[in-house]
């Protein structure tokens, strides 16, 4: 579903991605680990069509980027560490706005559905700026799955969440968001990242330094692998 071959991104003279080759199959959940500054967000932004690669090839659902970016956008749902929501609008209004932008038919019904799915239907009329960080992140998921995209991109979705909120988010991700979708998630949180994944990869120094199926990995040994691959100790 997502195919990247030798993707390069250079900011001025600073290479951030030095040839990333990564494939995420249909219906697969891949977690991309990596320390801050490894280029995870940059890579995700390229997949999300909001940044152009300097070199290499990338395709989503067989559509090459950036040439077919218009067609790809409708297939993607994105949750980033920023909620991408308007504080002065209510949850329902935010979704209604995005429903219009995605040109949904019967938006009211779909909005009710996703709000219920993330457990915010009772707070639908509240302004988003009154929401807690965890609630905003759940609403961000509702926004991302509003148009029922086959591909979901999650960029550090746990950032700024406490334990409880992160656990709730996990539940929502597992129950509604990722089911049946192709998911690419980035994180540096090892236990959260392993939780839902089918396959894991580590991005280090602008390249995929490690790739393995989730089965057969446990948190402790993977943490050691991670430390070894990224050259960072004690990031469990």
């Amino acid at each position: 579903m997502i195919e990247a071959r030798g993707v390069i991104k250079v900011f001025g003279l600073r290479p951030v991605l030095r040839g990333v080759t990564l494939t995420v199959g249909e219906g697969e959940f891949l977690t991309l680990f990596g320390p801050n500054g490894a280029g995870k967000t940059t890579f995700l932004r390229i997949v999300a069509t909001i940044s152009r690669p300097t070199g290499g090839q990338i395709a989503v659902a067989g559509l090459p980027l950036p040439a077919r970016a218009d067609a790809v956008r409708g297939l993607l749902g994105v949750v980033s560490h920023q909620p991408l929501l308007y504080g002065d609008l209510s949850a329902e209004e935010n979704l209604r706005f995005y429903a219009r932008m995605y040109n949904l038919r019967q938006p009211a019904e779909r909005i009710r559905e996703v709000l219920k799915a993330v457990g915010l239907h009772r707070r639908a009329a509240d302004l988003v700026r009154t929401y807690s960080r965890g609630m905003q992140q759940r609403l961000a998921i509702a926004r991302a799955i509003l148009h029922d995209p086959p591909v979901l991109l999650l960029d550090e979705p746990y950032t700024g969440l406490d334990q409880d909120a992160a656990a709730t988010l996990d539940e929502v991700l597992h129950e509604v968001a990722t089911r049946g979708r192709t998911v690419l998630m980035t994180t540096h949180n090892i236990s959260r990242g392993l939780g839902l994944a089918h396959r894991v990869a580590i991005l280090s120094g602008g390249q995929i330094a490690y790739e393995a199926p989730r089965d057969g990995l446990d948190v402790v040994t993977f943490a050691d692998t991670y430390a070894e691959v990224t050259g960072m100790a004690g990031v469990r």
Partner: protein
Amino acid sequence: MAATTTAQAPADAQRAASRPVGLTILTVFTALMLLVATYMAFIYAPTERTMGAVQRIFYFHVGAAWAGALAFLVTAIAGVVYLITGKRSWDIVGHSSVEVGLALVTITLTSGPIWAQFAWGKPWTWDPKLTSAAVMWLSYAAYLMLRQGLDDPARRARFGAVYGIVAFASVIMTYFGVRFIEATIHPVVVGSSAGTGEGDFGLATRMVHAMVFSFITFTFVYATLLWHRIRLERLSDRVARLKAHFFSQSG
């Protein structure tokens, strides 16, 4: 692999650092032209009847104005080409041309009031040509500030290109805008309408020679400075690249 890079680097650097022969020739030639232009403005051209010696400012004043406008036109064109091709070299051309153009327009904006003090009795009027020159200067000063405020080089180049295009359109429109307010009192130095207006000073043939020569000289001054400026930018790019290369190897 490291060995070859280090072996190559000095020879490479030397070649890049040594000034191209063409540029040296052009620089010397331009300097000679400036000397001749100075001679023509001060000695060859006769003293103007009504204004006297101060009119001689015009030869450089107008030449610089022309070259400045040319510089900003080049920036607008380089901007269009950059947006189409995305090549760094066009960004360098656009940016360098603004810096050189600003210097040239500064010559115009300082020499003009000196002349006007004598001719009109006051250094500044809100005449269309003066206003648009001042707006031009401000627009391109803003262009440089825009670039300075951006960290990502690709974005700096894109925004520079966009602003360079919009600013050029605005300068033209401002000029037409103010021209309608009142007939310009600024003398028309070149063109068919010479002979009207209070600033008419009926250019003698020698004056025309001096003026035309000044136009050509300032075009050369612009080209020379642009080439130097582009080369400087290329070299600083190179330094940054070598630095990045060095630090990526040493960790």
